[in-house]
């Protein structure tokens, strides 16, 4: 990215950054797994509880615990063995305190019975497939300093009930990859006593050949998927273990192909949030529920995302007082390629609450460099 290009993009962004119109330089449309985008009515407002803040990306998150804590920058550790998991868990709790800024994602199946489960079992058994697609996530983060320091800990679960993008079920991809592999010649002599010895590192040509198989045969981003997830968090003052319910969230989303380059997504989300676990003077606990429908299309040079959503929020101040608010909203985003490695996105959203009409805009500016090109569709 040259300085002149940067300057041009900054100027473009400034020109579009008017009230009611957000400008984002974003990633190009990619192939996430799974992407179920939706407007999120339940996301917290930037300044507490005054209004509804709209995020144009939400789905059943890969790591529900991280999503609930809003700690997307955490590096996620994915232990591949029980021994690795043991090491990770030991790092999570030290000197009688929960350590902040840690994220772990694990598949109980892969760490236990799935270690000896065969590919044939996977193809034959739906139960095996579901067990492998079930993951548990753990995350911790920190809030405040000194005496006010609180560690937030969250645990989440996620299950993909339907996944047409599952590579193991993609016979063409698997056959292509196996054909591309070259079996190494065995050791010339029979020295040693180990039953299993590691083979040579895969050569670059074989790896490229497998990657070509993925590019050619992988199911597109808009494959049909159904996922559910849930997470809960607890506030732990100074990292001391105790039980309370700070946040609780549940997601469900269904995505379906709509033509070669488009997809439709329907999602629901429930969020219970109680900031009083950290600050007793803060607002009341809040329940929110939202359901959304999105249409997205991704082309080589541009992408479109449109979302409509309805939801409600219920707040109970005390045993006698509660308030209810209904919300409807509509949002849209256009992404287009301005340089081979840079995309520009213009986003708008509008909200209707409690019969009144408030137009709320979301404006932000985000730069991305060295963007991975969109995969073939």
């Amino acid at each position: 990215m040259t300085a002149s290009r940067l300057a041009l993009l900054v100027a473009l962004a400034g020109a579009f950054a008017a009230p009611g119109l957000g400008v984002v330089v974003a990633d190009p449309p990619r192939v996430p797994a799974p992407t179920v985008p939706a407007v999120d009515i339940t996301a917290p407002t930037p300044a507490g509880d005054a209004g509804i803040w709209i995020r144009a990306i939400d789905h059943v998150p890969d790591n529900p615990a991280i999503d609930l804590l809003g700690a997307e920058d955490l590096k996620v550790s994915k232990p591949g063995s029980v021994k690795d998991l043991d090491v990770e868990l030991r790092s999570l709790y030290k000197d009688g305190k929960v350590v902040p800024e840690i994220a772990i994602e694990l598949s109980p199946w892969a760490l236990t019975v799935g270690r000896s489960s065969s590919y044939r079992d996977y193809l034959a058994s739906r139960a095996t497939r579901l067990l492998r697609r079930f993951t548990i996530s753990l995350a911790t983060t920190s809030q405040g300093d000194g005496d006010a320091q609180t560690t937030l800990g969250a645990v989440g679960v996620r299950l993909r009930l339907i996944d047409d993008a599952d590579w193991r079920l993609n016979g063409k991809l698997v056959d292509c990859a196996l054909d591309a592999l070259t079996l190494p010649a065995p050791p010339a002599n029979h020295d040693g006593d180990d039953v299993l010895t590691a083979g040579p590192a895969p050569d670059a040509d074989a790896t490229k050949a497998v990657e070509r198989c993925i590019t050619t045969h992988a199911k597109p981003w808009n494959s049909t998927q159904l996922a559910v997830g849930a997470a809960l968090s607890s506030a732990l003052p100074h990292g001391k273990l105790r039980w309370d319910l700070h946040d609780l969230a549940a997601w469900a989303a269904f995505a379906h192909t709509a033509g070669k380059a488009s997809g439709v997504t329907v999602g629901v989300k429930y969020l219970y949030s109680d900031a009083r676990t950290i600050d007793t003077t803060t607002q009341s606990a809040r329940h929110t529920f939202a359901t959304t429908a999105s249409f997205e299309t991704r082309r080589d040079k541009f992408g479109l995302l449109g979302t409509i959503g309805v939801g409600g929020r219920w707040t109970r101040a005390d045993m006698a007082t509660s308030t209810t608010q209904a919300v409807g909203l509509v949002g849209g985003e256009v992404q287009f390629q301005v340089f081979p490695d840079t995309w520009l996105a213009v986003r708008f959203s509008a909200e209707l609450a409690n019969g009144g009409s408030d137009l709320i805009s979301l404006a932000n500016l985000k730069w991305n460099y060295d963007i991975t090109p969109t995969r073939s569709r």
Partner: protein
Amino acid sequence: MSRSTEVPNSVDLKLRLLVGGDLPYKWQVYEYPATGGPPIALPGGAGRGDERVAIAGLPPQQTRRFVWSVAAVNLNDEQEVDVRVQALATDIVVGELAATWKVGRTTSSCFVHLDLTARAS
């Protein structure tokens, strides 16, 4: 861990390799000649998944040494999986060795050794 196991003598056997982790894989089995020298690929001793390779029964106390060259596809993160090699007589496991294999992302390979020794009686 020893790479040796005992099997009944003079019984026709089938050899099988099992790789866990729900991973697709392919293999080629070789035998080390008793007289020394590099391993020789067994005829019909290649395949995908848990297919079997037939071998003739061994005379008492004779040893045959086999090695599987294995490559697996893994498009998820690195994971540790169980690997087993078995000798079967009429579908009953009469000898087995097990090991663990750390399978990296995209593709990995390994060698699995099995020394079969026929019992004296």
